[in-house]
C-alpha cells in the first residue's frame, strides 16, 4: 500500500435511470501522473466527484491507501490526503493571495475557535514558500478576484500544494490559459511529482499535454473505460481516434 495509491473497483453511478459511470475499475499509480481522457459527458468529472465524496457511488468501491472512501464527506476525504483542482478554478475571490494559501496551511486543531492567533507569523513564511513556487510573490496582498485567469490557476496550484495532499485530482489544469502559463504549469506538475512525490490524476483534452507528461492514460467513454495504457498506445488506438479524436479512417 503505497502513499497516494487510489483504486477504483467497479464504480458505478446512476442518475434517474441513466448510468453516468459504470463498471469503472482503475488503478492510479502512486507518484506518477495518470491522465483521464474522453469526450465531454463521458463521466470524467463525475469520477472526480465520486472520489472526493461529493457524490456517493451506487456500485463498487473506491479504495485509497488501502481504505475505502465510501461514506466520507468531501472534507474528510480531503483530510485523508486527496486534494482537488476544479475545472472552474474556485480560488477564494474575496481573499488575498496570501490568505488563500494560509487557509490551506491551517490545520484542524488551529481552526478551533480562539486557537492560534499567535501562529500567524510562521504561517506567513510557509505560505510564501508556495506562493514563490508558482511565481506569484509580487501579488501576495492582491485579492484573488483581481488576478488574471492564468494567475488564478497558479494560485489554485499553490493552494493544493500548501494543503499537503498526497493525491491530487486536477480537472483540466491548463484549459483556457496562455502558452506561457501552460508551460509553467506543466513544469510545476512535473516538479510536484518528481520533487514532492505527489500522485497526480489529470483530466485533459489537450493531447500534447497527455503525451508530454502522463505515464498512464485511461480513456473514458459513455461512463465506461474503453481503453487504458501508455499515452502513445492509447492515443494511437483506433477506437480512441474514432470516438474521441475525430480522426476517422
Amino acid at each position, binding site marked *: 500500500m503505497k502513499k497516494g495509491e487510489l483504486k477504483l473497483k467497479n464504480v458505478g453511478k446512476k442518475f434517474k435511470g441513466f448510468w453516468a459511470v459504470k463498471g469503472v475499475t482503475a488503478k492510479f499509480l502512486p507518484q506518477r501522473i495518470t491522465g483521464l481522457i474522453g469526450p465531454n459527458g463521458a463521466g470524467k468529472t463525475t469520477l472526480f466527484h465520486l472520489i472526493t465524496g461529493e457524490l456517493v457511488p451506487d456500485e463498487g468501491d473506491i479504495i485509497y491507501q488501502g481504505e475505502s472512501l465510501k461514506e466520507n*464527506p468531501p*472534507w474528510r476525504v480531503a*483530510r485523508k490526503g486527496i486534494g482537488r483542482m*476544479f475545472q472552474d478554478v*474556485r480560488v477564494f475571490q*474575496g481573499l488575498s493571495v496570501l490568505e488563500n494559501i494560509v*487557509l490551506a496551511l491551517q490545520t484542524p486543531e488551529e*481552526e478551533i475557535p*480562539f486557537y492560534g492567533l499567535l*501562529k500567524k507569523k510562521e504561517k506567513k513564511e510557509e505560505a510564501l514558500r508556495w506562493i514563490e513556487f508558482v511565481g506569484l510573490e509580487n501579488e501576495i496582498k492582491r485579492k484573488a478576484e483581481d488576478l488574471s485567469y492564468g494567475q488564478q490557476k497558479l494560485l489554485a496550484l499553490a493552494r493544493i500544494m500548501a494543503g499537503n495532499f498526497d493525491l491530487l485530482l486536477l480537472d483540466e489544469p491548463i484549459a483556457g490559459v496562455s502558452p506561457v502559463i501552460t508551460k509553467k504549469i506543466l513544469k510545476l506538475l512535473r516538479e510536484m511529482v518528481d520533487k514532492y512525490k505527489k500522485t497526480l490524476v489529470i483530466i485533459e483534452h489537450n493531447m500534447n499535454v497527455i503525451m508530454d507528461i502522463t505515464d498512464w492514460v485511461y480513456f473514458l467513454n459513455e461512463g465506461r473505460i474503453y481503453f487504458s495504457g501508455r499515452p502513445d498506445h492509447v492515443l494511437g488506438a483506433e477506437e480512441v481516434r474514432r470516438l474521441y479524436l475525430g480522426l476517422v479512417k
Partner: protein
Amino acid sequence: MNYVIHLLIMINIYLVLAYSLNLVLGFGGLLSLCHAAFYGIGAYAYTLLAMHFDLPFMVALPLAMVITGLLAFFLGIPGLKFRGDPFVLVTLGFQVIIFSVLYNWVSLTKGPYGIPGIPRPEIFGFKIDSLYDFLGLTGSILILSVLFFLALYRSPFGLALKALREDERAAESLGKPSQLYLLWAFTLGGAVAAVSGALYATYVTYIDPTSFTLNESIFLVAILLVGGSGNFWGPTLGTIFLVLLPEALRFLGLPDTIAPNVRQMIYGTILIILMYWRPQGILGEFKIR
C-alpha cells in the same frame, strides 16, 4: 445630555448584536433572519432566571448565554443544512416560531403583557442604577465583546469561515468541514446576542415580544448590509448610522406621526441604493451572494 447617554447605551447594546450577527453573516456568509429571536431569548432567559430564581447578574447572564447558545446550536443542526433562499426562509421560520412561543406561551413569558419590574443589575455589591452606571456597564461589556470578536475574526477559525463564505465547495476540498464551522459561528453568534438581550432587559426593566420581531431581525441585517460586514468597521459604522438615523430625522422636525414611516422609507431606499452601488456596504468586505 441624558438623551445622549441613552443613545450611547443603545448603541453599545446594538454594537454587540451587530458583531455577533457579523460572525454568521459577514464571516459565515449566511443571511440569517432569526437573530432578533436569539436577542429575545437571551432577554427572556435572563429575566426569568433573575426574577424567578433570584440569580444575580453575573450568574444569570452567563446562564442566559448558555441557554441561547444551546438553542442556536440545536436550531443550527437542521438549519445549516440549507443555503441560499431556503436558508433565509428557514431562519425566517425560526424567527416566526420563536416569536410565536414568546407571544403565545403566556404562562411562561406573560405573552403580549410583557414582564415589568426587571431588577437592575448588582455587580460585586455595586448597584447599576443610573444612566451613567449603565453607560459604564454596557461600555465595559462592549469592550470585552470587541476583544472577543476581534480575536475570533482574526483567528484561523475566522479565516476558515471567510473561505467557506467565498466558496464552500472549494473550502471543503481543502478539508474544512462547513457544517461544523458554520454551526460554531451560529452558536457563538446566538450566545452573544443573549448578552445584548440581558443588557436591554435590565436597562429598560420591561420586555415584551414586540421588541424581538421579524422586523427587528431585518433591522439587524440592514445594519450589516448598510455599514458592511465581514470585518470590524462595517458593523461598527452600520450600527451607529442606523441607530442615530431616527434621531437625525427627529432633528429635522418630522412630526412624530409620520416619522416612523418616513424612517422606514429611507431605510428601504438606502438598501436599494447601496445594493446597487455598493453591495458590500459602506465599509464592509462581504457581498451577499
